C-alpha cells in the first residue's frame, strides 16, 4: 500500500475524469460546459504534471510528455475563452464555444493515453 502510488494514480485518473466531464455535451452550447469545471480541470492537470516530474524511467518520460500536451491544450482553451469574453467584440458565440470544447477534447485524448500508460505500467509490475 504505497501512498505515493495512490496519490499519483488518483490525480492522473481524476484529471481524465474531470476532463471528460467538461468535454461531454453539445459542442456549441455554452450551458453544457461550465467555466468552473474548466478551471478545476486545469488545476488538477497541472498537479498531475508536477507529480510526474523527476521520473527517470522511459515510461515516466512519456507520461510527462502526455501530461504536458494536455496542459498545453487546456491552457489554450482557457485563453480562447478569456479572449472571447473580455477582448473580442462579439463575446461568447457557439463557434467559439465549439473551439474551446475541441481543444479540451484534444486534452482528453492526451489524458486517455496517460491513463493507458499507467495501466500498462501497473500490469508490467504484476508480471
Amino acid at each position, binding site marked *: 500500500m504505497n501512498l505515493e502510488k495512490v496519490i499519483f494514480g488518483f490525480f492522473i485518473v481524476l484529471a481524465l475524469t474531470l476532463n471528460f466531464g467538461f468535454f461531454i455535451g453539445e459542442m456549441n452550447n455554452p450551458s453544457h460546459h461550465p467555466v*468552473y469545471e474548466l478551471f478545476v480541470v486545469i488545476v488538477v492537470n*497541472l*498537479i498531475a504534471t*508536477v507529480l510526474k*516530474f*523527476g521520473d527517470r524511467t522511459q515510461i515516466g518520460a512519456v507520461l510527462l510528455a502526455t501530461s504536458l500536451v494536455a496542459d498545453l491544450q487546456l491552457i489554450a482553451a482557457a485563453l480562447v475563452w*478569456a479572449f472571447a*469574453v*473580455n477582448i473580442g467584440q462579439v463575446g461568447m458565440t457557439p463557434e467559439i464555444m465549439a473551439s474551446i470544447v475541441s481543444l479540451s477534447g484534444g486534452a482528453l485524448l492526451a489524458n486517455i493515453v496517460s491513463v493507458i500508460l499507467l495501466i500498462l505500467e501497473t500490469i508490467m509490475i504484476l508480471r
Partner: protein
Amino acid sequence: MDQIIWLILRRMRQPLLVLIGVYSVAVLGMVLVPGIEQDGQKTHMDFFHAIYFVSYTSTTIGFGELPTTFSSSQRMWAMVCIYMSVIGWIYSIGAILTLIQDPTFRQALVERRFANSVRKIKEPFYLLCGYGEAGVALVQALTHYNIRVVVIDKNQDRINELSLHDQKFPVFVPGLCADAEIPQHMLEAGLKHPSCSRVIALTESDAINLKIAITSKLLNPKLKVIARSGHEGTKSNISSFGTENIVDAFEIFAETIALALHSPDHYLLREFLSGISGTHFDKPPVPPRGMWIVCGYGRFGRYLVNHLEDEHLPTVVIESNDQVEPPPHGMILGRGTEANTLIEAGIKGAAGIIAGTDNDPNNLSIIMTARELNPDLFIVARQNSEANAALFEALDANIVMNPGQVLAKNIRGLVTMPKLSEFLERVSQYDNEWARGLFNRLEKVVGTDIVPDIWVIKVTEDEGPSILKAISRGNEVRIEHLMIDPYQRSIDLKALPLLFARGEDLRLMPAKITTLRIDDRILFCGVGHTYQRMRLLANDDYLLEQILLDRDIPRSGVMRWVLGYKKDAQAEI
C-alpha cells in the same frame, strides 16, 4: 545534462505544487465571492480577471482593485490571498536558491561543463592524470608545442592552480578535480574520445598509475600509455600488459649522469638535440671522473651508485638510516650535513658530491658544508619541492635535479620527437670521438647557440606530395635538393640530415647525394626558418621544380606560352 534537469525537476516539485494549490484556491475564491451589487444584481469576477488579480497580488506588484472596486467580502478574501500567495512565492524562490547552492548540484554542473569542453575538442589531445610538479612542467612543455592536454587531479587546490596558470598557456587546458582511479572520471575526461591519442599517468602513487594504465588499456586499447613508476614490482606489472613507456625520474637522471661520465660528447649531443627548440643552449657542465660521495641511499642513491660503479668509479655512501638493506660497501652512517661525516667520507679528495636525500633543507645543508671543505667539488643537488627553487638557484650547484623537470623533459621528448630517440640510440653505438665529430659538424652547419628544430620529411602523399610527384615523373630527387633554399637557390639551408630510413633499413648521417624513393623518411635538424622552407618545398611542386631544373620558371601559363617553355625541358636534369 539530463542529470542536471532531473535534479532541478525533482527539487521543484514541492514548490510548484504549493504554488498551484495556493493559486487555484485564491482564484476560485475570488470568483465565488460576490462583488459590489449593481442595480440589485449580484456581480462576480470572472476567471480571467481573478487570475489577473491573483498574479499581481502574489508577486507583490499590487496595481489596485481592478477592474472594479471590491466589495467588503471580496476584500476579506483578498487578504487571505495575499498572505497565502506571497508566502508561497517566497518559499518557492527559497527552494530555487537552495538548489543552486547545493554542492551536489554545483559539482554536477562543473562536471557537465568539463565533459562538454572535452567533447568539443577536435584535434588530437593527451589525457594527463596528476597535476603535481611533473604535471605542471609537462603541460608547460606540451602546450609550447601547441599540443592540447586535458588534466585530471584528485586535489582541488591543484586544479585551481591550473586555472591560474591557464593565462600562460597558449592553448586552453580543461581540468577536472576528480579521482582518476574511478573509470567514470577517466571517461568524462575523454578516455574514449576519438581524438584522444595518449594517456599520461603522473600521479604520486604507483598504485594509482597502475590502475590508470589498466583502465586505459582495457577501455581504449589503441591509446598509448606513459606511466610513472618507482618500484620494480609495479614497473614489471605495468609493462606486462603492454604499457608503451614507463618513466622513473631517478632512473632517468642516473642514466644521464652515467652517460655524462662515460662519454661526455654523447651527453653534450643528447642535451643539445633534446632541448626545447628555439631556446638558447648552454653547454651543460660535465661531471668529472673520480671518487664520488653519495648522500642518501634511497631509490635515487641506489640507482646512482649502481651506475657509478658500472663506470668503475669509486663511491662512498653516507646514509642516516642504519637499517638500509643491503648496506653498501664502506657505508658511513650519518646525514652528511656535518663536516666530520664528510671528512670521514673523504671529501678532501673527492671529485664530486651528490646530495640525494628526500629532504631539501638537508640537501642544501650538505652542499653548503661540502663546498666549504672542498671548493672544487662538482655538485649535484636533488631538489624535491618546486617551492624551494629560489634556494637551489642561489646555491649555484653544477647540476640541480628536480624529479618533475626530469620527467617532463623526458616525456616531452618521447611524445614530440620519437624519431630523435631512435637516432640517439643509433648514435650511442659509436664512440665518444665520433660524437664529438658530429657535434663539431653541427656547430659548423647550424650553430650550437640555439637548440635546433627536429623534423621528419616523408616522401608520401600527405607529407611530401611534390617530392612524390617529381619522382613519379621520373626526376632524380636527392637529399641535397631538399637542402637548397627555394627562394635563393645559391644558398644552402642551415640543416643537417641525421637519419635516413627506407623500409626497415636505417642509416645514420646519410650522404647528401642519396637519391630518394617513395616512402623514404629523412630526419633533419635545422635552425631559423629552415623547417618552414623545407616543408614548403615538400608541398609546392613549382618550387621543387625550380630547384631540380636549377633555373627560374615562369609561374603563369600565359608567360610560359609566351616564353616558349616546354614541359619536356625537364629531361635536361
